[in-house]
């Protein structure tokens, strides 16, 4: 989402960027990316209670806000109010960049941009934010998958133990039994193991 909001004339200096994100890890990933790209004036704002005050103090040219942030309505209202105070003005979409808008929403990021900034100056920043947001989502997904794989393995171990105890068979035989059941029922091994643990719990309980 690309918006334009402030109308102050832009001196040709390094752009000041504020990242508003309650997720510290993601914020630092973006911050790092921007610094690597040569932006030195980057501020991370993660305390929402002070977000508006901090933004007015910094007076950034670009504000990056994550879409999960429940405070987006509050922040937009703050931007609109600041217009009333003769500081920043009109937020409107950079219609020429509708692809970036879609890519931004897709990635889960919104950006508010000072009016008068040339598109060439802003686009690399937005692209950086989008790619870092995407990278972060991929990382979180992989972490979640890794976590569930670990969980699966634990569940299967537990189910094997139950079978070994109940049927007096060895570990290899228990695993084989689980696997053949899963194949017969066309279910995931972990699912079969899970229901076996549940059933055992019910019977023993």
């Amino acid at each position: 989402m690309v918006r334009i909001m402030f109308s102050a004339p832009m001196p040709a200096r390094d752009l000041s960027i504020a990242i508003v994100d309650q997720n510290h890890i993601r914020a630092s990933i973006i911050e790092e990316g921007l610094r690597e790209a040569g932006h030195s004036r980057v501020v991370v704002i993660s305390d929402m209670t002070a977000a508006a005050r901090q933004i007015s103090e910094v007076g950034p040219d670009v504000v990056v806000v994550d879409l999960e942030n429940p405070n987006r309505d509050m922040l937009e209202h703050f931007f609109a109010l600041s217009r009333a105070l003769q500081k920043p003005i009109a937020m409107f979409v950079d219609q020429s960049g509708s692809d970036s808008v879609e890519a931004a929403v897709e990635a889960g990021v919104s950006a508010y941009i000072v009016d008068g900034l040339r598109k060439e100056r802003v686009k690399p920043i937005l692209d950086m934010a989008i790619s870092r947001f995407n990278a972060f989502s991929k990382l979180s997904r992989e972490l979640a998958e890794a976590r569930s794989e670990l969980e699966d393995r634990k569940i299967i171990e537990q189910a094997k133990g139950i079978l070994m105890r109940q049927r007096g068979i060895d570990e290899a035989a228990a695993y084989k039994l689980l696997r053949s059941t899963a194949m017969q029922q066309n279910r995931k091994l972990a699912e079969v193991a899970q229901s076996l643990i549940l059933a055992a719990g019910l019977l023993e309980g």
Partner: protein
Amino acid sequence: MADLRHSIRAGFLPLLDSTILVLAREMGFAADEGIDLQLVKETSWANIRDRLTVGHFDMAHMLAPMPIAANLGLNPISKPMIAPMALGLGGNAVTVSNSLFVAMTKQGFSGGVNATSAGQALARVVRATPSHRLKFGVVHPHSGHNYELRYWLAASGIAPDVDVEIVVVPPPLLPDALRAGAIDGFCVGEPWNSVAVEREAGRIVTVKAEIWKSSPEKVLGMTREWADANDEALSAMLRALHAAANWAGDTKNSARIADILSEPRYLGRPAALILRGLTGNLKLGPDRETQVPAFFVPHANAATFPWQSHALWYYSQMVRWGQVEKTAEHAKAASETYRPDIYRRVLAPLGAKVPGANSKIEGSLKSAAAVGASSSGLTLGPDGFFDGKIFDPDHVDDYILGQSRGNSPTK
């Protein structure tokens, strides 16, 4: 299971008035119409707007003034929007902090939800302590909450932009903000008033249904582009939502509805708390309960009909508070955001009680009245404003000229 010909993704915020959308999915009304309805819970109205605009959502639970604001160019991002259906009437309340409640009591307020007595007591508090500017929270600048709070304050002799300060705070954070003293009161939809009362963070002092009876709150919003390209899916969805509203309007189903809404993927709050707003049997504070007539109306009195007079009233308030200029084009754009023609075309053939007019004079019905409709038995109202004013959609400009920004008691 019917053949699911349509796939619809709809965004919503966890609020009581998402009820009929949730029921359309959970009670199978959408599936009956061949719709695979996917509901996506969102965290901000800005997200709802953005995801509608880029096409992530086909339609959404929206604050009634939002699609109007989009068409008036007030949004940072803007595609033409339409509202072919309302999602019920009422459902909001005004809650104040315990200390403000005590101050209002000292100024003669005896509790309850009467908008006049609560407003007068609040005005006396404001006058008595001019150095302390009270702060009120609303959920969005283009919301029924913002306009009804301002209407109530101004009609009570409090200038909303001078005597008090109005800030935007997301609904789930309002009760904590009140408890922490960051704000002195707020106007929000249920269940958030009841959450604040339950946490003993504040007390309900008036309700939307007292400030303006039978008043509009949320709509089903979508881009005009999507509506034009998906007429069949839209018609099916309106039929499903109409059936859901009908079911929701039967008080026998209230307990079941509260159970469904209490699930984590919807409101994620205790069913008993949700039931208060659903039945209008509100707990105002630790020691007081009251039955508010027509607190939240999902179906009766043409509750889902998109009255263009509602859209025009919102426009009149946008002008009043300096959000938009008064022009004939703006009035037209606001009015045409609401699409009673689509509603009527789809639902009248089903024998639904559809009003024959697109607009009505707001505030003229002091009690419920039978009106002409495409099928007999439609009643409307009462629809009065608490200060007795009348809004005539044929004379919007006169209405706008006649309204002030509140007579400041301190200036």
